[in-house]
């Protein structure tokens, strides 16, 4: 028995290593795609531009990375004894993997290297973001002990992964076609998306930097129920807890104190990320001397906006039924079995419905009202925001039956 137990934890270690390897393979794939888009074009013997081979190399690395992700998934499954999609780390990592799978499918259809240049970094970001959450193996609560965990969660994640490709393609479309020499609302919002991505990167960097420094500051504070409690910050406290007193010596005193109903440590992390994102963003602006979108735009000159538009639409046409099946239909079947009712207006359920309604509206606008190109691309971006909102905000902030992490 003891031996077997040790074997299990060794398996968990193997799993973590496979994920790390997958991460680096995705990184290499990103670089390959970036080179394929920005690098010199090769000409064949007849002198025609045939592009270069970097795209294919990138594609091979994406597939390799995906294989290692699957390896991580299987070994973690063996280590835990249940499908590893039951908390924030596991689900978000799996979402990154499905995003990669969706990319592999769509690249197979359209062979657009630029899609790799945008999707692979998103995969990297999603996986890095996932590992910010606790990675230990967690036991399953009774409600989760069901075969529907495998079916419902994996299908939903796959649907979300495919829909996210729509976002990547939409983003490419916008950067390719917007006029960055003007200052208007469109440019502002596109730069806002770029800033959000920069903030996410900052969040991951800061998080790891302070972890490396082993920063820990414990506060005693008064919680919502009016009782005294303790809270540990992993970053210097800009926003302190309600009536908090610092217990750890030599750490920073908070600048302002937050009310009790707010999770002040999370709010503090958000402020850090947004602040650092702002600094990084403006540093980039200073270096590039133009909007980030405007700096990327020249790289995309050779891309047909029509094709990118179709890729985004195709991704959504493929992803929407998958998401509906996993996020609504399988979800309802399982809810009927585990929670006695197929629908209970739990926040996560409602936001899955909102995602469904949003993409339904997108499809109707596109098919019947002719919303192609730019308007369609903006909708893809908004759709992705809704998916991320459901993943991050609804899980962490709005409490409900689905909050496991």
């Amino acid at each position, binding site marked *: 028995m003891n031996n077997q137990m040790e074997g299990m934890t060794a398996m968990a270690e193997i799993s973590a290593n496979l994920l790390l390897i997958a991460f680096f393979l995705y990184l290499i794939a990103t670089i390959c795609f970036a080179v394929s888009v920005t690098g010199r074009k090769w000409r064949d013997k007849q002198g025609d531009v045939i592009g270069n081979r970097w795209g294919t190399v990138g594609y091979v690395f994406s597939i390799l990375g995906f294989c290692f992700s699957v390896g991580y998934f299987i070994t973690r499954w063996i280590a835990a004894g249940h499908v590893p999609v039951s908390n924030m780390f596991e689900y978000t990592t799996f979402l990154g993997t499905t995003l990669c799978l969706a990319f592999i499918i769509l690249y197979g259809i359209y062979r657009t290297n630029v899609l790799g240049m945008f999707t692979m970094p998103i995969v990297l970001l999603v996986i890095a973001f996932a590992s910010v959450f*606790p990675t*230990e*193996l967690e036991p399953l609560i009774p409600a989760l002990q069901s075969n529907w965990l495998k079916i419902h969660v994996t299908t939903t994640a796959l649907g979300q992964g495919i829909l996210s490709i729509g976002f990547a393609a939409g983003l490419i479309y916008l950067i390719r076609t917007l006029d960055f020499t003007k200052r208007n609302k469109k440019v502002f919002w596109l730069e806002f998306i770029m800033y959000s991505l920069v903030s996410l990167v900052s969040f991951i960097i800061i998080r790891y930097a302070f972890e490396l420094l082993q920063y820990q500051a414990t506060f005693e504070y008064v919680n919502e129920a009016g009782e005294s409690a303790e809270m540990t910050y992993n970053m210097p406290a800009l926003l302190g807890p309600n009536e908090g007193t610092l217990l750890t010596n030599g750490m920073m005193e908070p600048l302002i104190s937050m009310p009790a109903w707010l999770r002040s440590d999370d709010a503090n992390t958000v402020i850090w990320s947004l602040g650092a994102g702002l600094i990084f963003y403006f540093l980039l602006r200073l270096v590039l001397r133009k909007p980030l979108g405007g700096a990327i735009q020249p790289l995309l*000159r050779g891309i047909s906006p029509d094709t990118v538009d179709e890729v985004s639409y195709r991704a959504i046409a493929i992803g929407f039924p998958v998401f509906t099946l996993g996020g609504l239909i399988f979800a309802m079947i399982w809810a009927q079995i585990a929670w006695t009712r197929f629908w209970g207006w*739990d*926040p996560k359920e409602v936001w899955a419905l909102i995602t469904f309604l949003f993409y339904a509206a997108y499809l109707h606008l596109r098919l019947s009202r002719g919303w192609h190109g730019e308007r369609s691309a903006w909708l893809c971006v908004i759709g992705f925001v809704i998916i991320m909102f459901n993943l991050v905000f609804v899980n962490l902030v709005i409490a*409900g039956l689905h909050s496991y992490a």
Partner: protein
Amino acid sequence: MEKQKCECGHLNPYGTHLCESCGKPLEEKDKNATMVDMRYDGVARRSQTYNKKIVDRIWNFFSSVKIGISIIILILVTSSIGTIFPQEMYIPSNVSAAQHYENEYGIAGQVYYTLGFHNLYGSWWYMALIASLGISLIIASLDRVVPLYRVLKHQRVSRNEGFLSRQRMFGVSHSEDPEQTMTDAKQFFARKKYNVREENGSLLAEKNRFTRWGPYINHIGLIVFLTGCMLRFFPGMYVDDLVWVREGETEVIPGTDGEYFIENDEFFVDLYDENDEVFGPAMQRASGQTVETYQTNAILYQREEGGTVGAEPDLNEVKSKEIEVNHPLRFNNFSLYQSDYKVNEFNKMSLSMTDRETDESIGTIEIDLFDPQAEYDLGDGYRVVIDSYFPNFEFDDEGEPSTVSDIPDNPAFIFQMFSPEHDEDGEYSFVGIQRNEDIFNENDYQMSFEGVETKDVTGLTVRKDLTLPFLIVGGSIFMIGLVQGSYWSHRRVWIRRFDNEVWIAGHTNKHWESLKKEFRALSKETKLDVPEDKQQLKEEEDEQSNGRDDGNGRN
């Protein structure tokens, strides 16, 4: 209204844009355009044709996709408002909703409650929105599917020149041997699994027409689903109840008209081992226990038919089952779910009557907290009378002892103790948990706590939902329609010969890049030129004329 006769001889319903048979543009607008609007193949739709009567107006309102999308967006926005604060069904039931929202969320909570957002999804206006979505689904679908079906069924192979040349993808090729070109093209499309039809030198290759019905099928599924949801409000369709059963006891199952009974043979809660090698670290970090299993070993009984009313029923065992979360007990359209529990509920309490001076015990009584006797006789002139019993004791607003509920979570008694010394009025004593007080004078005897027997109680949700078959059928139809409409595209290629010229035009309802790929493959085999994509040309021109295509020397 009169029908319109096309030059090909086909009679088209009033309001048709493109002849249903040969495709010739019938309206001035289309005749002058470089591309015709191929949406629904230019059929006459009721909503676009009539606008006189009230019925027409209502029909036109709900058939509009713009209105449909607006309804979707309205539902989307209002649904999201419902998640700002928890809905009424998720708040604790021990305070009034009005107070809860005010206490927890301040002014915002008060506004939320006043506007009725605490019960948003059950509000009349939310239901009205869902209902209008249903109506929109029906009307918008009928308005389109009927004429679309007709036009696709009646379409001719040989199409009018005006139709061909106004397609988004259109090209003219010269061929030395047009006969051979047509044969090659025919073979090409047959090999690509197209449905190829020929008619005096013209060719129509069509693929996946069935995908056009996808949207309408999924709308039918949604309508069935919404109808199913509505049926819940009919009596007898839906039961939602909770039954508490103590270990060893049998309770009637609510909603079954006293026909079915459930016995709780055993209930237990299993926790995960906190020192588990695999899960230990996570549990220690969360510093809480994690439940592995809640389980009720239950036995289901059915009342014997023909039993006397009022008499203790004769029960026949139907089945036994270990009810766990995710594993309900099902019988006769009902399901029993493990949904709540209470461990160590007080069941019986033992107290002894003792002489204060000598500390000598006179006798012990055992009180069934759910069914206390009025009097317990201890013999030799000693007896204990229960004057008052408070299963869940508290002092009420006037400071009088009272009880919160019938569940003995905090039992308390006023005893009247009779003894040979006090055989007239007895002595009064108030006994509760951690309380033992004399009421009038100092007593000679007291009731002292000896022990308590507890039982585990399981809470089972009783559910009957006869609407489920509708939802399953509706959901399945919806999913089939969605896949049918999403994963294929309806492609048509028309080829027509004019002496040495071969005209070729193509249309697809989506994914034009894939159609172009098909044309490129066709071109390789038949020497037909790849048709031009007018829309792409137009967009490229637009971009050029914007004068910002700097190109950076690339391409």
